[in-house]
Each structure stands twice: as C-alpha cells, then as structure tokens.
C-alpha cells in the first residue's frame, strides 16, 4: 500500500514537474507584461495599447496588459498585489508615495537602461521633474505626467453673482488670493458655490498645497524631518483658508460634495488634465488661469505621476526595456496628448496646442508651460500614508467654525513629529 502510494506520488510529481518545465520554456518565448494604471479612460487605454503594439515590432514575443485599478484605493491594491506575491511588472506611482517606492528598493534602476536606448535623450527630461523619482543619481520611475494645478473659472456664474472674473483681475494686475477669495465669497454669498479645491474633501489635505504654497508654507522642512505646520506662513495660510470657508462662505464646508464641472460653481483648483470634464452640452463660459499670487508672490504647483518597473519581477529586463520604449522621445509625444510632458523639447506652444485643442495659446503659455517649468511638486514623504492619516485626523478639528487655528496646528505637529523624525 505504502509502496503503491509512493509510486503514484512519484509519477504525479514527474508529470507536474514536466508540465512546469514545459511551462517555463513556453514562458521564455512569450512574455506578457502587466502594468497597473489608475485610468480607465478608453482613449488612454487605446493609446497605451498602440504603444505596446509598436513595441511588438522589435519584440514580437512581448505583449503588455494594462490593468486599470480604482484611483481611490490604487496604492493599497498595488501593495496588496505585491504582498500576495502577484506584483505587476510595471506600475504607475503617485507623487505622494514616490518616496516609499523609490527608497524601498522595490523598483529597478532605469538610468543606465535609458542611456543605452537609442534616441532616448534622458537629458531632455527636466531635472526638476525627475528629482522626486531619483535616488543617488539613479532614476527609479519616469515622471510621465507633470500636470500643473490651475484655476478653472465659470464666468457665467461669476458674472451673475456680480463678482470679478479672474481674467478681469489678471488684466488689472490684481490676481491675488485676497481678490480671488473675495470673488469666490461674492459667489458663495449669492447662494452658489465660490471656489472648490477639487478632490480635497477635507481629507486629501495635501491638495491645499495649491493654495498654501502662495504663502510660502510647507507641511515639513526640506529634509522632511521637522513639522512646519506651526510656522507663521502655514498658520497665516490656513487662517486665510479657514476664514474663506467659515466666515466668508467663499469655499464649501466639510460634508458638501460639489462638482465644478456641473456648472454651478464659480472657480475650482485642479489639474489642467481635467479640461476633459468640461461639459460638451450646455457649455458655460469657462476660463483657465494660473494660480493667483499669494503673500509670498507668484508660484505654481504640479502633481506628478511616475511609472516604474519592479526590481523583483520575473521579466524585469523586458519591463525596463518596454519602459524605455514607452517614454522615448517619440512616444512621449503621444503620451503628451493626455499627460503634460516633462521633456523640454515638448514644452512648446506648438506641440501642446495640437495635443490640448481646448486650450488657447495664452492658456498654454501662462498655465501649462510656465506651470511645468516653475512648479513645485505636491508634498510627499517616506511612509506618506501614515503621515497623511495622522495629519488628516489632526486637521479635522480645524474644519469647524470656532477652530483655534494655531492650537490645532500645534496639535498636528505634536502628533506627526515622531513619524517625521523616524
């Protein structure tokens, strides 16, 4: 009986091993790369598939699958896949989690491989754009999207409320946060919504950088070790934002979900790629303008997305090669249709006009080109998710009418300091 069992087991094992060996041999022939992305936009997918098809010309055995994951839980889903032993070969990475991915050693280095790719010209990609994705001189993810934050205005709503439009303020040389908040307050007090910081929702506080950078404020010091929520610049900036929300009704309060593109809001701060949400039917008179100047002067803020290859993937080398192909000078032009490029050679009105047909030449020059060239990236940090949640919990007590801004921010710093100092 035992002998028989042994024989059977051995035979079964032989068959399975044989199959496995055959499987490996087969896998060497055909490589299927998987890239997780957070866009389910069909036009985006069509473009990616087109690039993947182009890669087939030189690598007929390689196919690429693009796997859209929901944006809200993107990083969680991605890390769960990694923890479950099923990591993708390539992945989009949000700027806020860039430090986690770049510093952990999870990603494969790209600089040498890109340098060896013919016609890649890595020097064309601005250093400012790659800073977040670089460690010890090695690039670990390519910033394929560098999208400036800007203000979309609904001139119909603004004019109906008797508020000055951004264009009027810019023409008069008065495009400052004081005046922008004043216009928004006029709209807010007329019963509509003045100004919405898109996706902020009193949770994603890092999006407020699009306002507080105008005060020269930052959540932590440049080395990331010290909490700077208690610095005067931040206290002043958040006092202004608090006043705009609770006293002047210039911005909607917590628990009010309002979409600018539905047409009932004066202004919104968001990335220029959201122009695709402008209504085609019943369009309103819209404008796109740079962020107003703050007490610290003019500034701009960009959001970035990177794409990297996993160092431990079975097809790492092919994945890096595909990444080099996907982001080379030629394909970057295709990517620029949807994702503002970080390549100097593409940052001109001509290229961007053909890829952003909705925008006027002035808008491209003032918002897109100067935004990308001068923009500071949204704040990020190693262990960002925990830091983000800790600060979110602390800031919750700021979002009530009677909040004591300085006291709340002191609490924020005392709870987040141990995490920053790590």
């Amino acid at each position, binding site marked *: 009986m035992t002998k028989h069992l042994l024989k059977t087991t051995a035979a079964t094992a032989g068959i399975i091993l044989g199959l496995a060996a055959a499987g490996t041999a087969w896998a060497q022939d055909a490589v299927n790369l998987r890239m997780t992305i957070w866009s389910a936009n069909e036009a985006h997918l069509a473009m990616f598939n087109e690039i993947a098809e182009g890669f087939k010309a030189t690598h007929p055995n390689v196919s690429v699958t693009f796997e859209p994951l929901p944006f809200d839980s993107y990083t969680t889903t991605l890390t769960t896949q990694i923890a479950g032993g099923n990591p993708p070969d390539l992945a989009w990475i949000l700027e806020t989690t860039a430090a986690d991915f770049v510093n952990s050693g*999870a990603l494969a280095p790209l600089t040498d491989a890109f340098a060896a790719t013919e016609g890649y010209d890595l020097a064309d990609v601005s250093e400012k754009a790659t800073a977040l994705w670089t460690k010890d001189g090695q690039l670990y993810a390519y910033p394929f999207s560098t999208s400036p934050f800007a203000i979309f205005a609904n001139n119909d709503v603004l004019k109906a409320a008797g508020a000055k439009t951004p264009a009027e303020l810019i023409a008069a040389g008065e495009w400052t946060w004081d005046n922008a908040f004043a216009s928004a307050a006029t709209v807010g007090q007329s019963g509509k919504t003045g100004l919405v910081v898109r996706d902020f929702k009193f949770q994603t506080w890092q999006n407020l950088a699009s306002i507080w950078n105008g005060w020269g404020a930052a959540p932590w010091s440049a080395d990331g070790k010290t909490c700077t929520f208690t610095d005067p610049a931040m206290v002043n900036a958040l006092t202004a934002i608090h006043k705009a929300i609770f006293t002047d009704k210039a911005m909607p309060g917590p*628990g009010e979900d309002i979409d600018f593109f539905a047409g009932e809001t004066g202004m919104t701060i968001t990335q220029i790629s959201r122009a695709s949400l402008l209504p085609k039917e019943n369009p309103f008179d819209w404008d796109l303008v740079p962020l107003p100047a703050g007490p610290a002067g003019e500034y701009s803020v960009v959001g970035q997305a990177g794409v990297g290859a996993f160092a431990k993937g079975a097809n790492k080398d092919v994945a890096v090669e595909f990444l080099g192909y996907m982001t080379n000078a030629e394909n970057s032009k295709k990517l620029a249709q949807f994702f503002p490029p970080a390549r100097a050679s593409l940052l001109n009105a001509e290229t961007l006009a053909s890829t952003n047909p909705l925008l006027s030449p002035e808008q491209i020059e003032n918002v897109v080109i100067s935004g990308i060239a001068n923009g500071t990236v949204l704040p990020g940090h190693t*262990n960002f*998710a*925990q830091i983000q949640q800790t600060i979110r*919990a602390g800031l*919750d*007590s700021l979002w009530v009418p009677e909040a004591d801004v300085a006291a709340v921010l002191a609490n924020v710093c005392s709870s987040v300091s141990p995490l920053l100092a790590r």
Partner: protein
Amino acid sequence: MSASASPNQKRPFWTIARRDAAAGYIFIAPQLIGIIIFVLVPLGLVFWYSLHEWNVLAASFNFVGAANYQMLLADPNLPQVLVASAIFSAGLVILNMSLALLLAVLLDQKLKGMVVFRTLFFSPVVVSLVAWTIVWSFLLQNNGGINGMLAMLGIEGPNWLRTPTTAMISVVVVQVFKNVGLNMILFLAALQGVPKELYEAARVDGTGAFKQFRRITLPLISPTILLTSIITIVGSLQVFAQIAVLTQGGPGMTTTVLVYYLYQQAFQFHFFGYGSTLSILLFVIVALLTFAQWQLRKRIVFYEN
C-alpha cells in the same frame, strides 16, 4: 478489535467501525477542508506574521519576536481605538436588539398586511452593504437629504459625519437599520414558538400584558436572545465597510474602530506585521466575549434544550 481473535487470522482492515468513521469523515470533508484552508491556516499565518516585521515594498520579512506585541502595548492610538470600538459595539447591540425585539413583537400580531411589513423591515438585510452605505453617505452629507428634510421643518441639522458625536451615532444607526431585520426575524420565529396556552392561562389569572411579556415571553425566547446577542456583538466588532465609506475613521479618530485601524496599519501604511498583531488582539477580544456570554447562559437562559 477483540484481543481474543486468533493472531493467525488476518482481520480485514475495513471493520464496520472504521467504515462508519470513514463515511463520517467523507461527509464532513467539504466543510472541514474549507475550514482548514480558509480559517485555520490563515489564522495560523496571521499569528506567524504577527511575529515578523514585513515591509512589502522592500520585500523584507524579519522575525522580530514579541516586538509587535510590545508596540501594541505602547501604541498611543490604541486606547482611543478600543474606546471607539466599545462605544460602537455597545450602541449597536443595545439599539439593534431592542429595536429588533420591539419590531418582532409588533409584527407578531395577527393583522392584515403583516407580511408586507415583515418584508419591508427585512429587505435591507439582502441589500448590498456598500450600496446601502453609499446611499446613506449621500443622505448624511451636510447638504444631503436628511438635512434637507430637517430644513423643511425649520430645523438646522448637524453636520452628521463631521461632528464627533453625530458621526458615531450615524454609523451605528446606519448599521442597525441594515441588520435589524435579521434579528427581528429570529425573534419573530422564537415568539411564534411560545405556546399560546401559557398566555391564555396567564390571562385567566388576570396577568397584564407587560407582566406576560416579562414572565412568559422573555424567558421562553431567552435562548434566541443569547444567540442574537453573540452574533450581533461579534458582528459589531468586525464592522468595516460602513466606517470606510461613511467617515474613514474621522473626524479625528472618533470612529476609528479596531478593524478599521487594523486595515489602515496593514493595507494603507503597509505594516502587515503590526496589522496581524492587531488581528490577534481582535481575535482574543471576540473569543473572550463569546466565552463570557456562553457562560452567562447558565444564569439567564431558561428552558434550554
């Protein structure tokens, strides 16, 4: 099995007893294999992970012994989290059980159209939890449906999900409305199992309705009360989706209950080792509570078969 059988005579392997046992094991195999693969092995793994520091991105997995458990004892957030869990569970169990019993007693009456009401109260149980919660999240917004209705009555409603007290109340009530139907049906079944003669005898003796309920109904349905209270408490400790959809643990950390905190640590902050330690804590709490309730049954449950 008898020792007196001749040693030369080879006994057949498949004795009746063994055959019966094998048949029994085959019958329970589907369930047993499922429990081993999906419950016992993961449980063991979670304990194993809780002894490790596991950084998913760096792919490091190091044995750290009791370090995660020391971290648990020193975690400054944990007291707040446990208090939030206790408030949530207490609120949920009290509200759910009393409402379910009240509804069951009302729906136990022999009136026309009772089936419609029973269906009505039970229907939320079969609705998808996340869909249910998302609808409520719209209703509970500051400019949402509930405050809209209150405004029509001239009342300025609170910002339900953004004020600490009302946020907790909202999460509890949304969960109670979702699941009260299930307990209601269990109570209803128990009520209908109470012999009608007892009430008749009580009426003959001139016992009032409330006394009948206290002296006859409650004791006779006490096994069901115990069962539902265990299910409800265990369920309340595992609440997750409602918190994730409605409050994300806020405002501050007022609605960060243990399971949500565990999720944050493991899946958002990527501390899988510490997350596993928190699940062990949750397991111990649930096990202790269930054990305590089971012990209590000797004192409070009557007429148990």
